[in-house]
């Protein structure tokens, strides 16, 4: 599709959705009336900017089903976010929504090279989280043989992959690393004993350095994909074989990048908060959902030939941005620095504390034979080097500290990277 065709289709679907939401969702009817928004006044995609944002709070205030456009009779599936505080965000799907969702997940899987010959091991937790079921039905749609292993018991997971000859692994990036590490400990040669070729990894931010480590450890090519339950789940965007940004399903979503403080769209190519408007949803047609993910969008032609715009791996979330001594820091920036130093293991944790009135940031890094020197002098030089690189990249003092292997808790879902002990 050309850019013009994409935008024409998006506008048409958007106008239809505004009407549909006005008719069926009291929350949006009130909101549109209040702002004087009418579908017939939407003449171009720019007019989308007149529509107020939808936030997680809107979901909370309408808990559980207040934002649904259809009655429960038509809803065939409920999912909910893993919200750590307060009520979870509840989302619903009609039969048609599930169909759309499966198709979009199938699309990202195929873009990463998955075919009906593949055996796919899904180690995402099944349940309310959209990752497990989302990937599951999408991969069935592709025709692959799906093994719904779910999360937990890493040794058993590895045995299943070995015995069933899994060629595709679906899980979080941090769990993929953990699987690689456990396989190594069990004396399994990932190149000979496992047949993995492709990893479809997502649900948490990760860096390109981490991708390299995962690819080395598991002997596969790791592809990123993006999605969030509020706008559908996985399948919003996914990487093609060029591994140069995730193609957004622009025939189903409009994406914008805004300045998180002002709410105003940034220039093309600049970093900001991703805002998503789903266009084809029956149960939950929301508008301008603020994802809190910080990324940027590229619209140039991809090597693979696809014309849909690409989004970068999110570099962080507006709400996990750390403010350390007044400086904005994303955990992913710290990760980039650590992983660029030869020999550092991929497990780390950031500890924030108060030292009097000042913030104190410490990074725990697991020691290994490359990082441990018998001579104190060399050890100090090495630690000084890590600290200096962190300082030059982030502009603040962060002290690296070596801890024993396996002392940082391994996660089977999303990795816990930050421990904030500060009391404000």
């Amino acid at each position, binding site marked *: 599709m050309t850019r013009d065709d994409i935008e024409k289709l998006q506008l048409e679907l958007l106008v239809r959705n505004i009407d549909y939401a006005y008719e069926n969702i009291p929350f949006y009817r009130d909101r549109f009336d209040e702002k004087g928004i009418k579908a017939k006044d939407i003449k171009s995609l720019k007019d989308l900017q007149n529509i107020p944002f939808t936030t997680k709070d809107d979901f909370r205030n309408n808990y559980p089903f207040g934002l649904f456009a259809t009655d429960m009779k038509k809803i065939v599936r409920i999912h909910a976010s893993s919200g750590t505080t307060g009520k979870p965000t509840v989302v619903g799907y009609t039969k048609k929504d599930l169909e759309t969702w499966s198709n979009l997940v199938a699309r990202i899987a195929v873009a990463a090279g998955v075919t009906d010959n593949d055996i796919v091991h899904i180690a995402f937790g099944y349940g309310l989280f959209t990752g497990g079921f989302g990937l599951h039905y999408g991969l069935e749609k592709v025709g692959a043989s799906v093994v719904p292993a779910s999360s937990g018991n890493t040794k058993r997971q590895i045995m299943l992959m070995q015995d069933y000859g899994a060629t595709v692994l679906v899980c979080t990036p941090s769990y993929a690393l953990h699987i690689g590490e456990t396989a190594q400990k069990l004396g399994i040669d990932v190149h000979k004993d496992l047949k993995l070729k492709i990893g479809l990894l997502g649900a948490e931010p990760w860096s390109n350095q981490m991708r390299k480590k995962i690819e080395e450890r598991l002997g596969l090519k790791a592809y990123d994909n993006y999605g969030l339950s509020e706008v559908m789940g996985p399948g919003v965007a996914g990487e093609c074989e060029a591994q140069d940004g995730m193609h957004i399903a622009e025939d189903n979503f409009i994406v914008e990048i805004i300045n998180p403080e002002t709410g105003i769209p940034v220039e093309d190519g600049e970093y900001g908060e991703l805002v998503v408007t789903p266009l084809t949803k029956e149960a939950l047609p929301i508008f301008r959902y603020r994802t809190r993910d910080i990324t940027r969008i590229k619209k140039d032609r991809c090597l693979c030939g696809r014309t849909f715009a690409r989004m970068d791996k999110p570099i962080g979330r507006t709400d996990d941005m750390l403010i350390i001594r007044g400086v904005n820091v994303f955990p992913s920036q710290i990760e980039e620095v650590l992983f660029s130093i030869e020999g550092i293991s991929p497990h780390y944790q950031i500890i924030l504390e108060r030292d009097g009135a000042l913030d104190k940031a410490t990074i725990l890094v697991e*020691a*290994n*034979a490359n*990082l*441990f*020197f*018998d*001579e*104190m*002098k060399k*050890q100090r030089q090495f630690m000084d080097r890590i600290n200096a690189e962190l300082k030059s990249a982030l502009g603040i003092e962060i002290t690296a*500290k*070596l*801890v*024993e*292997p*396996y*002392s940082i808790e391994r996660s089977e879902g999303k990795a816990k990277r930050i421990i904030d002990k500060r009391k404000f």
Partner: protein
Amino acid sequence: MDIEKYKIPQISVFIENKKGRFYNTTNAMREAGVNIRAMSLADTMDFGILRFVVDKPKEAYDALIESDFIVKKNDIMAIAIDDECGGLSKLLKVVSDLDLNVEYMYTFVNSLDKRAVMLFKFEDIDSAIQKLSDSNINLLDQEYFNRI
């Protein structure tokens, strides 16, 4: 002279300053039937370095790796001196005159043969062995640690 003969294998272990870690290290060696001949514990702000000289260096190394410790093997020198007043001072005079750079050292006393054993980590072990041996210093080999 055979320089290699006087290189004593030393095992260095990274341990966090946490309860029970020192014990776990020694226990791993006990289970492997390794006898510790000399040891030192150096501590930094955050972690410690345990250094051992043992009767069976290979077994000790393998046992510690097996228990997920971070371990380094390197070579140090062992020098016997008389266990009497001024014994160490005499030796250090020679070391100083020869301009040998010491990284660290530790010691143990063997009550059976009335000698003290000094363990040295020199910056350049090969030249230290050569020069100290030329100065008639009593160098010990690994055999000594298997025997006592």
